[in-house]
């Protein structure tokens, strides 16, 4: 049975991944660092989206009942309430309009993270995938910012508070720093997710190598990496939460209409928002 699972995992890994050119150099002694091929990533992504849609299709059957009796639908309702609280709590009353987007991101990231627990790879273990959703999120934040404040108002916000003409160089520096900060949001969002999921994978793979040299059967085949499972499961939830939470924070910063209070407050929270996940 264990051989069957290992063979299936190997087949899936071979079919969907290709070893990095740098794998030999950086992979160390635990099989090299592999990433999903384009088709592999698409297969995983569509499989996860398909799985989510199948679950939704099952859950949808109970939507017409006055009371949601289906366990699956109750889970989706709980999640709906959670996402709604997240949006309304951070962004404000108008945050509900971002719910479909954040709900989708939450589900895709969370299920991808769960997939990473049992499969050799996962979309969120791929930096390109994470960069894609980060670019989408940050791009949407800019779009909403321009819709809320106007194109000029939005970009002017990056220049910081209004300073005397003599301090124009400072204003320019602030503008450039803010732009870099904005670009770095993409990097931080994607690298954080990638690092946690792929890092968990690498750690589990490395730990599974423990005891391979032992003569004791029990020790030789004991999956030490499985001991990481509780913390990896926690990571699945936390990383999906952090991504969505930060997305909400960024949206909140650009869509608050009280600009006077917002300027200082926003910069303060931005730092705080970035600082908090870094400790995770």
């Amino acid at each position, binding site marked *: 049975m264990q051989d069957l699972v290992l063979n299936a995992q190997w087949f899936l890994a071979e079919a969907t991944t290709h070893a*990095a050119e740098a794998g030999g150099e950086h992979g160390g002694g635990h099989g090299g660092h592999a990433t999903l091929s*384009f088709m592999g990533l698409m297969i995983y992504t*569509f499989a996860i989206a398909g799985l989510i849609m199948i679950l*939704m299709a099952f859950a949808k059957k109970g939507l017409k009942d006055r009371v949601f009796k289906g366990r699956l639908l109750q889970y989706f309702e709980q999640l*709906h309430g959670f996402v709604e609280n997240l949006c309304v709590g951070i962004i404000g009353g108008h945050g509900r309009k971002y719910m479909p987007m954040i709900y*989708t991101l939450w589900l895709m990231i969370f299920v991808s993270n769960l997939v990473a627990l049992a499969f050799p790879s996962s*979309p969120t273990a791929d930096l*390109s995938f994470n*960069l894609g959703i980060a670019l989408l999120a940050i791009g949407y934040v800019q779009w909403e910012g321009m819709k809320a404040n106007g194109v000029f108002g939005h970009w002017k916000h990056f220049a910081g508070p209004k300073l005397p003409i003599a301090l124009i160089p400072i204003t320019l520096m602030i503008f450039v720093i803010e732009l870099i900060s904005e670009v770095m949001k993409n990097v931080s969002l994607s690298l954080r997710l990638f690092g946690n999921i792929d890092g968990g994978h690498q750690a589990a793979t490395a730990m599974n190598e423990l005891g391979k040299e032992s003569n004791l059967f029990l020790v030789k085949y004991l999956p030490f990496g499985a001991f990481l499972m509780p913390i990896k499961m926690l990571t699945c939830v936390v990383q999906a939460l952090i991504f969505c939470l930060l997305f909400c924070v960024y949206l909140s910063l650009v869509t608050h209409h009280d600009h006077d209070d917002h300027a200082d407050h926003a910069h303060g929270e931005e730092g705080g928002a970035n600082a908090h996940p870094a400790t995770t």
Partner: protein
Amino acid sequence: MSEKSYPKKSSAPMTIGMIIVGAALMYGGMYMSSNVTLGFQESLNEQGILLDLGKTIAVIGVFLILFKVLDLFFFNPLHVAIDTRTDDLERTFGEAESLRAEMTQMKSEYEKRLADTEADARAQIQAQIKEAQDLKKSLMADAQRQADDYKQTAIAEIDAEKKKVMTELRVEVTKLSLQATEKILGANVDSDRNRKLIDEFLTSVEAKN
């Protein structure tokens, strides 16, 4: 309230447009993944950071489609169902609240009517008691009057009987006195004169008594 801020269903052209853009990005990403490699990607790959911008672009395309599809397929119906249920519950609670208010009003009316009825009953009882007391007084007065009448009649009869008895007694005493006197004196005394003397004597005795 929540419906106002929840995104309404996108128009069909918007949805189709997003799906087309998403599909185009997926295709462009696929093309870029297999044919285009930027300089910084190679340097990143050399450092062990595996980045494929083709995949990134394709993922953006996939999510553009997914946002719309999942929203139409599930999120919107779920949100509508939850809102409908919330409205139903609010309406039910509202009806229950109005029924409760109605019941409270009915209860207060009932209590008021009960209190009025009790007050009426008390007043009626008091009136009956008063009437009974009046009747009792009246009956007592009648009885007293009747008793007084009986008493007066009895006194009058007693007096009459007394006078009669006294008269008879006087006659008898006179007779006895005369008989006694005749026996004592042994002579026949003029009865009329003696009787007159005895009468005078007895009258004087009665007057003393």
